[in-house]
C-alpha cells in the first residue's frame, strides 16, 4: 500500500532563517506531487505541483521554492523565512489525475 511521510512534524524558526521540508511517497511510481499551505482561517492554498522529476509548477509567487530530486521525493525550501510563512504545510500525491492523498503535515511557526 502507499504511504506518504513528511518531516519534521513541527518546526519553530526565526525570521530570516532558511527552511527545508521534506515529503516522500512509498508504494507508487511517478506520482504527481503537491505542496499546500494552510493558514488559520484561510483554507488550503496550493503552492507547487510536480508531474515528474525536475518539473515544478508554481501557483503563487512568494519566497518559497520546491524541488523534486527523485521520483518520490518533494522538497519545499526557503532562503529567508518571513512571519507570513507560518502555517500548516501539507504534501499530497495522486496518480491518474483523480483524488489526492495527503501526508500528516508540518506545523511551521516563524518567530
Amino acid at each position, binding site marked *: 500500500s502507499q504511504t506518504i511521510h513528511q518531516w519534521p512534524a513541527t518546526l519553530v524558526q526565526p525570521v530570516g532563517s532558511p527552511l527545508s521540508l521534506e515529503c516522500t511517497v512509498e508504494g507508487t511510481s511517478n506520482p504527481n506531487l503537491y505542496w499546500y499551505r494552510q493558514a488559520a482561517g484561510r*483554507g488550503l492554498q496550493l503552492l507547487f505541483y510536480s508531474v515528474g522529476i525536475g518539473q515544478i509548477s508554481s501557483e503563487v509567487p512568494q519566497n518559497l521554492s520546491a524541488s523534486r530530486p527523485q521520483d518520490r521525493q518533494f522538497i519545499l525550501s526557503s532562503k529567508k523565512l518571513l512571519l507570513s510563512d507560518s502555517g500548516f504545510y501539507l504534501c*499530497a500525491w495522486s496518480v*491518474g489525475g*483523480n483524488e489526492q492523498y*495527503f501526508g500528516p503535515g508540518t506545523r511551521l511557526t516563524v518567530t
Partner: protein
Amino acid sequence: AQSVTQLDSQVPVFEEAPVELRCNYSSSVSVYLFWYVQYPNQGLQLLLKYLSGSTLVKGINGFEAEFNKSQTSFHLRKPSVHISDTAEYFCAVSEIRGTLGRLYFGRGTQLTVWP
C-alpha cells in the same frame, strides 16, 4: 478556472442529529468531486468521491453525498452524527480533462458535534 463555495463556515449540531454540509461549484467543464475530512493537526483524509455513475455516493464513517449537476452542488450528509465527527470538512473539484490532478478546494466547514 474552477471555484468551490462551502456555504457554511461553521455548523454546530447535537449528537445523533442529522447534518448537511453544503458545497456548490462553478465550472465550464465536467468535473470530479470530492469531500475530505481534517481532524486537528492532521492531514486531510478522503471521505468520498464522485467520478461517474450513480449521483449518490457513499463514503466512510456513514457519510454520503449527492451530485446535482443542474444545481452544481455536492452536499455532504450524515443521518446521525457522533462526537467523533467533529472536524473540518473540505469540498474539492477537479476538471476531468484539466491539469493532471489539480484540485480546487472550498474554504472548509467546521463541524462541531455537541453531547
